[in-house]
């Protein structure tokens, strides 16, 4: 077997909670005084290991997926391998030209034209000017923006923006490509094109790809092997199918009805103003298709928050979202004072989800775009068949929604 192109040995990364965000001189002075008095200051004790002793190897030409729940350390691993931040311990060796795509269109300048931004973005990603010039026509054609190539990017639609960004990225010629979940943007047809380009990149030219995703479908579709991270450690490594199957099975821990989210998600969670602290599913009763369903969300505010709406989402355990209930669709946006411990309950008169297992996601935002807290796939529910469940659904539980509609067709004919 040839020498691995990526070698990760004992990689660890520690974050100090409470010191995230730049400090002020005063805080630093206090900490310094504490150190003089040989006392660990309270801030120093709150450590968080985002990665702990992670090791794996990737051979040239392999496509490896990284899976795991939120806060499992996937993003931290990518940031270290992309050299955006340094590890606290261990090492990683990358043998070849590395391109990492943690975002699409990094460094685009709104005042510059599409053409100018191709050069700029290409250079930021590591292409030389000569390389960009050689591939310019191809990039422009891939992005489908021929007509707007000399228009400032600030006049682009968000779709054009994404297409241009991906087109540049897709024309890098690295030996190692590190991709975060960047494909979840853009329209569907373009997503297919990008996935196709990625496959072409790896299969056609024997390039190595490290791919992080929540979408288990694309991991099994694209990757040969997968690494499953849980709480900063490698839980399992193997063929993508086997690891994904194992991961999905692990989500079949006996479902609970009470959840505590105070420590959920680790350092990546942004919940400074309002935090969803807990969930009680259906008052502890079994969850049944076609019957009323209630979920109680517990939250805490750290500041005055205005126009708050909550959301409850149901998805497959593989990560595909099926249905979302937003409190502001019913016109409910509320303002909460600071330091409030609150509860809000959502009641569905008839649960439309067919029997099966689902992941529940929770969220809160202020207004239309101000995200307050987001907990994707933070809990699991098992939906049981109920009295209203159609017999065919009980016999072949496929999951998903089963909804009523009016069916119109030719009048029944008799023979």
């Amino acid at each position: 077997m040839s020498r691995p192109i990526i070698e990760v040995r004992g990689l660890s990364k520690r974050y100090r909670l409470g010191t995230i965000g730049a400090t002020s001189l005063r805080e630093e002075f206090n900490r310094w005084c504490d150190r003089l008095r040989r006392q660990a200051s309270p801030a120093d004790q709150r450590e968080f290991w985002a990665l702990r002793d992670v090791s794996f190897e990737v051979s040239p030409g392999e496509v490896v997926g990284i899976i795991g729940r939120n806060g499992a350390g996937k993003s931290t691993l990518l940031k270290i391998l992309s050299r955006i931040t340094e590890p606290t311990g261990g090492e990683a060796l990358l043998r070849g030209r590395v391109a990492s795509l943690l975002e699409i269109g990094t460094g685009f300048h709104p005042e510059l034209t599409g053409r100018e931004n191709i050069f700029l973005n290409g250079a930021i990603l590591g292409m030389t000017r000569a390389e960009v010039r050689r591939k310019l026509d191809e990039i422009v054609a891939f992005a489908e923006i021929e007509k707007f190539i000399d228009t400032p990017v600030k006049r682009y639609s968000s779709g054009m923006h994404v297409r241009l960004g991906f087109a540049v990225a897709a024309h890098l010629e690295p030996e190692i490509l590190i991709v975060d979940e960047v494909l979840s943007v853009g329209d569907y047809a373009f997503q297919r094109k990008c996935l196709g380009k990625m496959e072409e990149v790896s299969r056609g030219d024997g390039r190595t790809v490290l791919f992080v995703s929540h979408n288990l479908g694309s991991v099994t579709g694209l990757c040969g092997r997968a690494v499953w991270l849980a709480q900063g450690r490698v839980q399992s490594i193997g063929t993508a199918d086997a690891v994904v199957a194992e991961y999905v099975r692990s989500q079949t821990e006996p479902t609970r009805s009470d959840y505590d989210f105070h420590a959920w998600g680790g350092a990546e969670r942004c919940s400074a103003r309002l935090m969803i602290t807990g969930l009680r599913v259906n008052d502890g009763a079994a969850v049944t298709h076609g019957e009323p369903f209630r979920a109680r969300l517990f939250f805490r505010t750290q500041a005055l928050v205005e126009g708050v709406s909550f959301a409850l989402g149901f998805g497959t355990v593989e990560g595909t979202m099926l249905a979302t209930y937003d409190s502001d669709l019913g016109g409910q946006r509320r303002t909460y004072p600071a330091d409030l411990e609150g509860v809000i309950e959502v009641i569905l008169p008839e649960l439309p989800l067919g029997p099966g297992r689902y992941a529940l996601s929770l969220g809160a935002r202020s207004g239309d775009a101000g995200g307050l807290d987001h907990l994707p796939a933070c809990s699991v529910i098992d939906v049981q068949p109920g009295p209203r469940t159609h017999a065919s659904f009980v016999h072949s539980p496929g999951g998903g929604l089963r909804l009523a509609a009016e069916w119109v067709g030719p009048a029944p004919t008799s023979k």
Partner: protein
Amino acid sequence: MTPFSGEIAIRPTRGFRGLAARELWAYRDLVFLFVWRDFVARYKQTVLGPLWFVFQPLITTVIFTAVFSHIAELSTDGLPPTLFYLCGLLPWNYFAQTFNSTSGTLVANAGLFGKVYFPRLVVPIAAVISNLIAFAIQFVLFVVMYGLHRASHVDATYGMRWDALLLPLVLLQVAAFSLGVGLWLAALTAKFRDFAVLSTFLVQLWMYVTPIIYPLAKVPEQWRVWVAINPMAVPVEAFRYLLLGTGAINATLIAVSLAMTAAALVSGVLVFQRVEKTFVDVI
């Protein structure tokens, strides 16, 4: 994508890291593109474009002439006050501009640095170069003013020296020093936001310990070495010496100034590189 092939080893570094000059050189195209982006983006947004670089020193010179020369009656070393101030402002404005743009490097580019790797020094180096454009415009302004003055005073005793050809070397020193202090401030601002407020204030005060509104000759001889510890003092005086023919500089002062500049640059690079490796974690 790294613009070069070869093994990349990622491991925690202890202490200070040396300068990866080879890697920096591999990213020279990016330096060029950042310079060009700064230039293009700046003029697309302003109505008057590069004319701003002309107005700013002109107005400052007019005010200096009125306040310091006419009201306070400070010496201008026997030179016409307009030329005296304008000449001193040439290296000073370049320093202040570069210092401003490099000291904000880490904080202003946090979003970019959090998403993609390239040697972080590329950004401040690009700022040093792109500010040369403003310098060039102001230099042309100076030459025009100089020409006008000479034409109206045929018997003038001041004049450009032949060794004005050494000017690029002096400018190089100013560039090196602005980069050095800028990197220090960039590193400190990333860690403590207090320094963002401080740096604006610092530049304002700094001008008064630099011989801009007064000639170095007005400083008692035995004190001049102390003034030269401010590495901007000698270059400002050297500009006037080379371009207008008067100035109190000697080998000792130049040596002190160069040594201080080298110290600022080397320590600036080291401190910056120490902070850049994990600053995305605390931003």
